[in-house]
């Protein structure tokens, strides 16, 4: 049986670069929340429907601290 495949993506944070500006959580609240210090908490891989929003959040980061990466193997 072949499984249905789609080009899923995940988000990864470059933690030393992140300065807790929080734009990512504003642009992609479905996937990113902020911890008590303002740093992002990424919730799971990005569903295909939110892919464009994820790319938008990556582009909006003023410190280039967010990246789209291949999802971790499951």
């Amino acid at each position, binding site marked *: 049986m072949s499984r249905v495949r789609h080009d899923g993506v995940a988000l990864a944070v470059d*933690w*030393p670069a*992140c*300065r807790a500006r929080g734009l990512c959580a504003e642009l992609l609240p479905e996937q990113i929340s902020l*911890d008590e*210090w*303002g*740093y992002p*908490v990424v919730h799971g891989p990005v569903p295909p429907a939110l892919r464009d929003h994820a790319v938008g959040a990556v582009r909006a980061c003023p410190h280039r601290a967010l990246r789209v990466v291949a999802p971790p193997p499951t």
Partner: protein
Amino acid sequence: MTATIPGPAARAPVAGSADWVPTPVTDLFVHEGPLLLRHLGEPVDLAHHQARRGPLPTPDLAALVTLVTDAAVRGRGGAGFPLARKLTTAARGRRRPVVVVNAAEGEPDSCKDSALLRTAPHLVLDGAAVVARALGAGEVHVVTGADRTDTTRAARAAVAERDDRSVRWSHRVAPPRFVSGQARAVVELLEGRDGLPVTAWQPEAVSGLRGRPTLLSNTETFAHVAVLVRGGADAYASFGTVDEPGTTLLTVSRRLPAAGLPTDAGVGTDGGVVADGGPEARVVEVAHGTPFVDVLHPAELAGPVLLGGYHGTWVEGDVLADLPVSAGELRRRGLALGAGVVLPLGPDACPVRATAAVTTFLAGESAGRCGPCVNGLPALADAVRRLAEGEDTRPRLRELCGLLPSRGACAHPDGTTRLVRTLLEHLGRRVHAHLDGSCPRVSGVGGAR
């Protein structure tokens, strides 16, 4: 072997005035072992080493991969990654690989890499030379910690003696930090930067030093390679178990803050088992599968043990006694052997106080780069200190232990939360006793104020 080092015995300072900070181990005893720690006390120079151990075979990549696959060699720095996979990944790259021997040993209580470099430095470098030849690597870098002056001197002397054809050797000194031994931090140091962890977008074996495939592994890993190529997989497998052949090095240290075990500097041992008042730390080579009851003294198993060092896992001594020295078996039970640091607390000491002191130290060892670590570890340390003072901060601790892991350039937050999480999960009864006032209190020693 008398690796007892002169100098004042380091004791945990009495808390109350300042935070506890671990001092370098000054009273170390290295035991003779079956494969790696042999010929202790004999001269360690290259000529004597070669006379003792014989010529060094240099298998090609396929033969080396077969050998380390058969012997199931895994990295000995804590992550336990299979060496065969690292080798094949590094060989697959288009550029010429480099080899890095990681002896930074940033964990203050770990002494096994130091012990190896001081008693058998050329065994380690033999292994690195074998790996370099098999990969076609032209350079080998050896990195030691700045706070380990004798080890650094031993490594520098041994590197200067090497006459391997087609391999250039270099030796670098890492800053004395807990996170200095992290793989990316070592690569950063070798590239001329500060030696602090940065985000790794690819494994070092794919793209490491200057973008080259980098076979970076712990000191001990290379020593096992050297033993294997000389003796073969069958001789190696005469020790250990079917799943985990061979041996592993452990550092047993009695230096946990608030520990209730005697450490009498300079007191000898009776061969296998250290007497009650043993040295503050010892390095032993044990066959995989050996039960901990054969490794630790009864007094060391009479209380909780922090297994795997400061980033490790708490476990009751009577539970640990029957468990084997086996990374796989321990992992299945939610325990971690890490880089082989075993820290017994003793029967009459308080693990909450010890955890408070260690967590406070670890929070201060953050490289200060990643937000969740910079903010989260002090918050975690504060909550453990308040727990030690009698306040029930367990909900807050569980919250932080869920929030901090996997959110940094290195695993420092992951390791620190592992310590705290296993205090709550594995020593829950003792934490409860601490909160209701029935906890044994040892004369105010420890990190809690």
